[in-house]
């Protein structure tokens, strides 16, 4: 854990019609601290991720990353700067296999080599196998991604993001769609991979148990605002959080 600010969000605002999805958010993401974002449906969590990864341009505010305002510059440029993302609904290449999906990310990160090299023969090909092994998905390598259940597709989606060698990774509900009995095991795998790759993560999560176990810090979102921020122990037992966000139960 460090006190080095990686991404500094200042006064971020965005509206969709009458819906305020970000109402002047001031927020810092610190290097090496895994941050969980919790909050009810429609709180603006995904929208925040969309802005931090360059996909949505905020109506006002700045996102300072590596000394530069990156608000609205587009995912392509941010990926090149080391900011990657896994999605709430996995975004994979449906007509390709698991391994090809990862390989396509490896190829994108390393640039095109000789134009007629086969995808499976690129020099980074072993990197794809390493990532699959790290995610304990080697057995899925040849499977077409659309055959896989949602939970496994999510893991592959994270693998694709990791293949880009990010410094900062946003994960949108990595364990939704995973059976509750498997959630911990899956997050264990993800957390180990993040640690091994030295990636700082920001993950949206609804499951308090998961947050308590894997987050260094928690931020509570509601109606486009950050209501609370603190350690999992403090936040998850905070009476207001329990009342406002978790509907009165723990």
């Amino acid at each position, binding site marked *: 854990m460090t006190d080095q600010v990686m991404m500094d969000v200042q006064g971020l605002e965005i509206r969709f019609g009458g819906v305020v999805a970000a109402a002047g958010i001031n927020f810092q993401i610190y290097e090496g601290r895994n941050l969980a974002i919790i909050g009810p449906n429609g709180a603006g969590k995904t929208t925040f991720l969309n802005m931090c990864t360059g996909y949505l341009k905020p109506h006002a505010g700045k996102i300072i990353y590596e000394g530069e305002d990156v608000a609205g510059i587009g995912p392509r440029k941010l990926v090149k700067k080391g900011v990657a993302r896994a999605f709430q609904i996995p975004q994979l290449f449906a007509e*390709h296999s698991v391994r090809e999906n990862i390989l396509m*990310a490896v190829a*994108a990160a390393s640039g*095109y080599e000789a*134009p*007629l090299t086969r995808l499976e023969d690129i020099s980074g090909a072993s990197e794809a196998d390493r990532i699959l092994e790290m995610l304990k998905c080697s057995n899925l390598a040849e499977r077409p991604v659309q055959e896989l259940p949602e939970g496994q597709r999510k893991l592959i989606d994270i693998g*694709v993001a990791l293949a880009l060698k990010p410094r900062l990774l946003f994960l949108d509900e990595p364990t939704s769609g995973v059976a509750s009995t498997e959630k911990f095991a899956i997050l264990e795998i993800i957390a180990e991979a993040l640690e091994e790759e030295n990636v700082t993560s920001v993950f949206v999560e609804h499951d308090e148990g998961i947050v308590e176990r894997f987050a260094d810090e928690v931020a509570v979102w509601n109606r486009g605002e950050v209501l609370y921020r603190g350690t999992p122990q403090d936040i998850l037992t905070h009476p207001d959080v329990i009342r406002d966000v978790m509907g009165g139960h723990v």
Partner: protein
Amino acid sequence: MKPALFLAGILLCAIAPWIIPNSQVLLTIALSKGLAVLGVIVLLQAGQVSFGHALFYAIAAYGTAFLGKYFGGGELFLAMAIGTISAALAGLLVGLFVVRYRHIFFGMLNLSVSMIFFSILEKFYFITGGSDGLRVERPSVLGIAMERGPFEVVLFYVALVCAVLAMILIHRFLSSPLGNHLRAIKSNEVRLEYLGVSPRLVLLKGYIVSAALCGLGGSLMAVTLGVVTPEYAWWVRSGEFVFIAILGGSGSVGGAFVGALVYEGVRTYASAFAADVWQLILGGVLLVVILFAPKGLIGFIKQRKASNLRPRSSKSAAGEALSK
């Protein structure tokens, strides 16, 4: 495709003119069209259908005709190179504009550009010969002037070699990282962006490759027929390329040529025996293909081949496309 099947197909094609009487020009035409169809197939990989690729076919054909007209007959390989390069450059220009659009807009914009070019060819009579077109001088081959008979033999084998090289290179291109990113445009552009890849740039590169292939086909066609007319750029021609791509099978490079050979064969022989119904026959064939062999004739051939080896093909439809 299995290498053995691929080789057998090429050999069969190479000896066909000596077996089937009067088929040589027909086969050259089919191979030339097949090259253009392969161009259309490259874009189909990205899920984009162009209804205007006759544009590039026509640009190369007229380029070839101008070369012959203004530079005394010209040279076959130079004509092919100039045709291909001018089509690729036109592909770059048109591509910069159309790759921002998808699906029906992409298809229709291509159509519009090709129809504009069609009108230019018709209206600028003093340069293009208007609707009469231009005669294409028979070019020399590596500096040797040839009589019509031997020239046609040479042309057929040149077209065959071009077809084989194009199939090999395009198959490799589509298996490369860039080719895979091109195919990914069909399934997920958002993820492509989040890989740091520009879908537009990828599509532009594919578009240039596809225009160049249409150009090579157009050049060969111009010297084969000895005449170019605005009809080369007519939208029906573009539609024909798409038709043949679906008929032959858009999932693999061989489909372009299988489709073109069958198409030209049916067209020629059916119109000889049943002058007015060849479109009906081809329409019927396409209907049957779409209903019973959605991967086109080439998919059908491969399936038959596979079922000879195994009782039932175990590969999924998606897995088999491009799994040559």
